């Protein structure tokens, strides 16, 4: 077994902390920490959609905005949208959309805002975990919660939740989002170089880890609402 940089086992995620209801002004909110990565998500809506031309006549529009705060990274990142954050906003929306019933309140919008306040790998997956809890917290009708984590391969070993220098050493990095009850994958991306047969192992470890995250998401919602 390869020893990981921070002493974790291959299938061990970083310490996870989830808290629901962290922003009073929002209809729903959550903070999720994976090790040193921290994301805060807020949900507003369903509310009237402006501009009107973006309304859908028969459904609620889900709008996601992922953003990295300037002080979240080692080299200060410029505020405002980038090509990277625009793409992540899109895949985040597609990771969450399958979990939602969007046909009940037409012509409205649900806004999901994700601020990554500290970045140390896995910001999109941490953001999706926070957004999913925030949506449930907001009372949005959903088929399931969405849990998210990345897995990859270093040498011959499959590993979950890559962090720190591991990201540079990995031969592939596969972030996924997953609905644990219905066993559906809602986010799937990959960078690297890996035989198809190995991909299955990576995927399996990621979905198994999502089930653990799912448990923690439920616990966090319980703590918020039933003290």
């Amino acid at each position: 077994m390869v020893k990981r940089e921070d002493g974790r086992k291959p299938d061990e995620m970083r310490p996870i902390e989830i808290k629901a209801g962290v922003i009073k002004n929002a209809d729903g909110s959550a903070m999720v920490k994976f090790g040193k990565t921290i994301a805060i998500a807020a949900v507003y809506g369903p509310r009237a959609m402006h501009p009107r031309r973006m309304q859908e006549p028969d459904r609620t529009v889900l709008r996601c905005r992922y953003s990295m705060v300037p002080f979240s990274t080692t080299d200060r990142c410029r505020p405002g949208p980038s090509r990277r954050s625009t793409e992540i906003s899109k895949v985040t929306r597609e990771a969450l959309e399958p979990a939602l019933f969007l046909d009940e309140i037409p012509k409205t919008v649900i806004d999901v805002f994700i601020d990554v306040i500290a970045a140390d790998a896995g910001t999109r997956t941490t953001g999706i975990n926070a957004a999913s809890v925030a949506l449930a917290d907001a009372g949005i009708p959903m088929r399931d919660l969405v849990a998210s984590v990345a897995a990859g391969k270093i040498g011959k070993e499959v590993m979950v939740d890559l962090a720190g220098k591991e990201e540079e050493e990995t031969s592939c990095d596969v972030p996924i989002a997953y609905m644990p009850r219905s066993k559906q994958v809602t986010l799937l991306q990959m960078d690297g170089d890996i035989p198809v047969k190995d991909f299955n192992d990576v995927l399996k470890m990621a979905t198994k880890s999502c089930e653990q995250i799912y448990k923690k998401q439920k616990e966090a919602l319980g703590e918020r609402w039933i003290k």
Partner: protein
Amino acid sequence: MTENVLKTDNSQTKMLKNDKDFVVPGDEIVKSMEYLPGRNCFREGDSLISKRLGLVNINNRVISVIPLSGVYLPKVGDMVIGEVKDVQSNGWIINMHAPYMAFLPLSGIKEFVDTSKTSLSKIFGVGDFLYAKISGASGDSLQVSMQDNMCRKFRSGQIVKIISVKVPRVIGKQGSMINLIKDKTGCRINVGQNGFIWIEGEKEELAKNAIKLVEQESHTDGLTDKISALLENKGGKK
């Protein structure tokens, strides 16, 4: 998770959640065709699954989830409190913290108005809070009316906002909770189904605190006793 086996006439039904259990979206409540999905539940295969964060409610064979959070969804006949956002040539735009703005048409008020002589903003102006009734709610068109006898414009007092799903607890069975608060504080109170509550009286502060306590502890047992105790300890009428 408590698992509890209920015997029915011809089959064994596995309850995965019990009445009043806390559920989140995606939680399976029961695996059986014996039960029907009620509000905030859906069926997938044999399973009945929660759609919303809330508490399970089992009523005979109908399973529903009572939500603990969420925006107000307007229903015809609801009394609501809204704020005038805009005055138009034929009525008023009302914000009631629902997914849509509501429209109060000129025909929805009791008085006859000659629009050639009277400006509509003389009747209700931007920023006015109104106690109104939902008269139409289909698709994205939401209409309110001021023709009910209870409807009026508030001229003083204060507005307290709570989560709309907690309104039934603030009102209580046959109005028991709200009447308790009114009696003990001597305040006049109007509750909007949208979670806006108007209070006026000497002990507004006490009434507000009682309402906020109901909102926070809505899921706990013995709520009426807690509220009585609060109201009596803080100088309400015994």
